[in-house]
């Protein structure tokens, strides 16, 4: 992600103050986010559900 894109996204997220005071931290945060999505396989089944996001077992 290039610097201009990071700045646009950060401002859109309301992080103007962080961008002014901690530009390296904002850049590091953006890099973390960009890197991580590339590691996830996209489900091949278009009907694969995201819901419920978490419900362990069947309970009682």
């Amino acid at each position: 992600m290039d610097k201009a894109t990071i700045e646009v996204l950060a401002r859109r997220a309301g992080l103007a103050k962080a961008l002014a005071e901690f530009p390296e931290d904002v850049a590091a945060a953006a890099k973390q986010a960009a890197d991580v999505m590339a590691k996830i396989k996209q489900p091949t089944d278009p009907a694969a559900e995201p819901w419920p996001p978490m419900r362990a077992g069947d309970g009682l």
Partner: protein
Amino acid sequence: MRDGPLTELPWLGVVEAAQAIAAKDLSPVDLMKSLLERIAALDPRLNAFIRLDAEPAMQAAKAAETEAMAGRLRGPLHGVPVGIKDIIDVAGLPTTGHSKILQDNLATADAVCVQKLRGAGAIVLGKLSTHEFAIGGPSFDLPWPPARNPWNTDHHPGGSSSGSGSGVAAGLFPMALGSDTGGSVRNPASCCGIVGLKPTYGLVSRRGVFPLSFTLDHIGPMTRTVADNALMLEVIAGHDPLDPGSAATRNGHYAAGLERSVRDLRVGFIRHFHEIDVAAEPEVTAALEHVARTLQMEGAELRDVKLPTLGEFGAVNRVILQSEAWAIHGPWLRERPGDYGQLARRRLMAGAFFAAGDYVQAQRRRLEMIAEVEEALREHDVLLCASSMDPPCRIDRPADIERTYPRQARTPFNVTGHPALAMMAGLSVDGLPLSVQFVGRYFDEATLFQVARAWEQAAGTDKKRPPIV
């Protein structure tokens, strides 16, 4: 009442102390005195506490003694002290999250897990160090210093429940509460050589605990022995209709089958986690093989298991965690970014850079991953794998912290919600704890404890104490 030096009392376990108090063989006041003396001597080096609540704890110990002598026991933890991670509410004390942001955030009620501990007779000793908001640490730019490892105070105790791990291992208290969103109970358990359980998602109420990630957060017990852990879980588990993530399930009797043999249990060994996905230090690999051989010698049937890679599990965990955490921290990060430490600021701001579709895709992939782990657990009673890929590194070397932080196999089971227990697998040549992790079926913590107890008994891990005095 028990005679003998107060210096031995800090090493009493939860079960042992509770039984001795119930039998009128141990004074809760003597136990509390011995712990407060040890805390005064060691905590300036360990920083396990953010806030020690000594006077109220001693008053509670006196009340517990009066009740015990009259034969009135509040419950199975009567008179036993407990430490509470400082993202968990204790009425009348601040819940700071180890952060300037919440420095004056006074809790008006106990979290449900604390209510349950107190209802069982436990005595709250104080609030414990954590990585900032359970994500940013170890950090030296916060209002309180980070906790240190009692096996070597130059080393990291793991996190984020760092004060919980450090204090339990050092004999400052016999049990503590931690929270685990990406491994934060099991990491300090691994680094400090104690027993840490992340229960099944929804088994322990999260109400009154400051959230990090709604669908990944778990509250778990941290103790020096497996039996202590099982007892603590019995107390804190149970359905809470006011926690939307709470499972509609009964409490289990987790300690009942502890001494059962593991003969014929089917154990799946996830070797690729530490052999291929993230190559572990040779000492860690050797320790894991030793655990596997020991369980085989005890009669368990061992087979290799393959799951998605650690890299992908970690990525799914990260997208979900940081997206959900951004929803919580966004307003503060916009207005008060300088009031966070740098590590938390960087990790929490990452959530601002995911798209809504990224979060949904991660949740869709999560359900597929859950199905794969469920499949493995249809054919196996328990899974065995690494917890940390390295012994704990030095706390004052940011590059080492950064390198070892993702070298772990704990996040998969936050993603899937299966119960997972980390404990000591041995000691490194430098005398630092090595770790192993056991993973079970949903709500089958009892079998996890059974296998963990078999290993503990065979290896004597519950007898090992850090050298700090």
